[in-house]
């Protein structure tokens, strides 16, 4: 391994491409922790935003008018405002109201970032799943009813599996966007990849190099997500259904 690090040191000395994140141990460990923070933010937000989406879409189909109205306004609020403004609202607005006993913040900036980004992506997921549910032909549900399926059984066994397949392409798009939006957590000092990179380039003055590193890292990260989602899409594809 030391050989690789030495090579990067040589690369810097001979070409000026200064990748301290490889040969400098301190930079290496803070970049790695930033990368892992981005992965952590992405995974947690993907899971919780999908949960929000499924639950929200289910509530939108419920008979309770109050519940439907709440979901409606939730979507409006999060779709019609910029995600950066939402982060600021949660962290500086709500966060400053919630003080711990000692006077410090009750909820950390990382948690606020997770909450904020999950609700942001979740609002879009609700709409995505709702459109999937509505795309299941009414007659398919009628057939299930006429076979004696209860409403819950019909939803669980027939409507949701079909709606999910219809929703996947749109869901892919939104989740890709979500991973890219995690960079906004930079604004509330969450030490994710962009944040640590900016610290590194301030110390090492290797701004253009680090910006290229960032670009490649996000390209690879999102590429992995897209690859996994496509594999999943293929795995659950049904002959003659959908595209």
């Amino acid at each position: 391994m030391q050989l690789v690090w030495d090579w990067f040191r040589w690369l810097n000395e001979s070409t000026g491409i200064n990748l301290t994140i490889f040969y400098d141990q301190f930079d290496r460990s803070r970049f790695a922790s930033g990368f892992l923070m981005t992965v952590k933010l992405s995974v947690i937000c993907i899971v919780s935003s999908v949960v929000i989406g499924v639950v929200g879409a289910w509530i939108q189909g419920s008979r309770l008018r109050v519940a439907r109205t709440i979901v409606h306004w939730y979507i409006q609020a999060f779709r019609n405002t910029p995600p950066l403004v939402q982060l600021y609202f949660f962290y500086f607005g709500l966060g400053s109201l919630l003080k711990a006993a000692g006077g410090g913040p009750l909820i950390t900036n990382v948690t606020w970032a997770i909450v904020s980004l999950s609700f942001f992506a979740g609002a879009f997921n609700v709409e995505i799943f709702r459109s999937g549910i509505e795309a299941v032909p009414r007659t398919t549900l009628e057939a299930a009813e006429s076979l004696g399926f209860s409403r819950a059984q019909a939803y669980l066994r027939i409507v949701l599996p079909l709606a999910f397949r219809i929703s996947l392409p749109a869901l892919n798009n939104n989740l890709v966007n979500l991973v890219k939006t995690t960079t906004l957590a930079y604004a509330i000092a969450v030490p994710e990849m962009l944040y640590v990179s900016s610290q590194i380039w301030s110390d090492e003055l290797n701004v253009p190099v680090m910006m290229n590193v960032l670009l490649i890292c996000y390209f690879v990260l999102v590429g992995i997500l897209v690859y996994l989602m496509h594999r999943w899409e293929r795995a659950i594809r049904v002959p003659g259904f959908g595209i």
Partner: protein
Amino acid sequence: MPEANSEPIVALRDVHQSFGDVEVLKGVSFGVAKGGVVCIIGPSGSGKSTLLRCINGLVPIKSGSIRVADFEVHNLHTDQEKIALRKEVSMVFQQYNLFPHKTALENVMMAPIYVLKEDPKEVRERAIALLTKVGLAAKQDAYPGELSGGQQQRVAIARSLAMRPEVMLFDEVTAALDPETVKEVLNTIRELAREGMTCILVTHEMRFARELADEVLFTDGGTIVESGRPAELFDHPRKDRTRAFLSQIL
């Protein structure tokens, strides 16, 4: 053949139904004896499909009464009551409405397993037997998207039969099929009727209705204009409206 004086298994009395201001059914009454075959014919929009949907409780009626076996269909309110009814009455649709994410065999097995809570092994055997009966044993692992329209419709019939219903409702089941595949579906229904299944068919297949029906109902504008044995109704229609309709299609 139905016995002349037996109590009808399906009985409708003065059924009214409307969607908003549009009255779709304006007082429909008829009965079907156990094992009988009734064909409903008539122009589009005359309320034929709605009538079938009322019989298995998919659509609630405004007034009148519908009785199927021991169920007062107009008095079923809870989901449990409706589910109990639908074990007795099964419906086959014009657009097949198979579950596209399940194979032919799974389509047939689903309702008995999840609704009747029967043993999956036993259901599987019965489902294979039913698919064999409709001539599709070789296609049991095919998805609906891989089957022709006629094959899908026969799977749909097998799926309904798997619930062991007393009454089968057929809603223009051949209307979306090409003339050649119509035959394979009609053969399946013919076989069922001959085995003594009570059938109510909405159909445009006049020759089939004439051959199979014990009674033919001609509906128009939400009422039964004329009814009778197929030979009478087709050869000697009494009403002008019936004559006009038949002259258009025969």
